[in-house]
């Protein structure tokens, strides 16, 4: 990226939601998206926790971007990220013990989520605080949406519920495979198929419109 400040526009925010969606396009942060996306509630909590860490860390990194020496920047970013992860860890522990148990070690593992380190390195360290936070927020929302997309499908098919509410009545046959780890891979890959199908279709229609 060039040093000249990019004009603050809508794109800074939406790029994380669609064009550079961390999970569906950049394929980052797949570990938590596989591991804790077995229900919609877990996905939402994980997504929001990551968003909080992302926004906080990017704000701090952006503020300190002129102070951090280039040689030790990764270590500094990790310390900043770890600070926010600790906050989130205690927060979730205090708010809901069940959720804390369900997410398990994956809350602490937000530290090594490459979406966050990637944003800090690629965006926040090169931009002033306002665009950095907006971009981080967009990315976080994109991550949350992706986790929710995976988690809802897995919960609907695997338990017949959504956010714990029964959808199909008691005689629904749960598809046990979607609660198990393979189900996460199946659902993620099917979403990826859908996304690439939609993208290819759009390029094709754009090309057709261009030709005619």
């Amino acid at each position, binding site marked *: 990226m060039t040093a000249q400040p990019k004009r603050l526009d809508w794109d800074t925010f939406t790029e994380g939601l669609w064009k550079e969606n961390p999970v569906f396009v950049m394929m980052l942060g797949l570990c938590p998206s596989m591991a804790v996306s077995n229900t919609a509630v877990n996905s939402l909590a994980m997504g929001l926790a990551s968003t909080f860490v992302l926004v906080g860390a990017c704000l701090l990194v952006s503020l300190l971007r002129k102070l951090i020496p280039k040689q030790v920047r990764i270590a500094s970013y990790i310390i900043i990220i770890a600070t926010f992860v600790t906050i989130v860890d205690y927060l979730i522990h205090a708010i809901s013990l069940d959720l804390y148990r369900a997410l398990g070690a994956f809350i602490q593992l937000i530290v090594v989520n490459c979406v966050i380190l990637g944003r800090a390195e690629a965006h926040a360290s090169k931009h002033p605080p306002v665009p950095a936070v907006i971009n981080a927020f967009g990315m976080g929302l994109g991550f949350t949406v992706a986790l929710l997309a995976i988690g809802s499908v897995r919960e609907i098919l695997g338990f017949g519920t959504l956010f714990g509410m029964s959808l*199909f009545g008691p*005689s*629904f*046959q749960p*598809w*046990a*495979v*979607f609660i*198990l780890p*393979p189900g996460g891979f*199946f659902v993620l*890959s099917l979403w990826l*198929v859908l996304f690439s*199908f939609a993208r290819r279709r759009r390029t094709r229609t754009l090309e057709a419109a261009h030709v005619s």
Partner: protein
Amino acid sequence: MSDALLQAELRTSPHVRGDLTVDKIMRHVVYALLPVCAWAVWQFGLSSLALLVVCTAVCLGTEQVVCRLSGRASTLGDWSVAITGLLLALSLPPGLPLWMAAVASVVAVAIGKSFFGGLGFNVMNPALVGRAFAQAAFTVPMTTWTPSQAAGRFTEFIPSSLTLPFLQPRSIEAWMDRVAPDGFTGATPLALMKFDHIPTDALPMLLGTITGSAGETSALLILLCGLYLVLRKMMDGRVVLAVLGSAFLLSGAFFLWNPDVYPDPVFTLFTGGMMLGAVFMATDMVASPETRWGVWIYGGLIGVLTVIIRLFGALNEGVMYAILLANAASPIIDNLTQPRIYGAVKTAEKKAV
């Protein structure tokens, strides 16, 4: 003279071709499967007929849809999808709700085959991918067995077959009381052996008058159908020999060691999906190795894994997972067993030189 030279047609090798095409082989495999299907229908009646029809139709339909979506010419004509459908149906329990069979068929063709690039590129046997998915998703219905040759099987369905989509299978208890009043436990010979140590006689297993998946019961019929294909040179008999031989040897060794605990080797060969798996699934041309030694290693791997899973695993049947694992390993096996190119120097000699 120069005219004759000009007329010569230049072609790359091979110059002499057999008349075996993919379509033809696949068509004959379907023919060979038909007697097995007929036996399945005779054994389990309307339900297994419906299972065969639904699986084949859904497989064909999925292939058609996928071909259209990916903008390729339809590949329905090469019969391979029909084989996938038939094999899948034969490997399912006869009373499985039809909607679950349809789901397994979609997974088999879409995920097991098309996602990898269609026929010739599938890493694993598509029918087994579908079955493995169904086993993981619907564990209880996939291990619910119904009595074979039940009274009235040609006039009524097994109640669970006709379950509405996405619902749990309908209860078959009332039906079971009617067709098998003397207390059918719902256990296959394998389950009886593994959990209760009750062996089954060899003859019913050979003829296939036992319970089990729709098409796996008659070992003799499957062997005969396989023999037809081997004689027509449309199937690799070495794979079958390697699978059955290694399973026989390993289970024989365990039997000799402790006959009270382990089943005899004949039992191992004639129960469960062993025959159907060895003859029709392990021999999948795409997913098995091609080299001379690779074929034997591959078949041996399947036999050994099956016996190990059956004797020491939590499941009583391991043919499916054994074949899937060996399928996944077959590219490596092929790589490790490349034949020496004619005239090439052996590695040891090369080092000496």
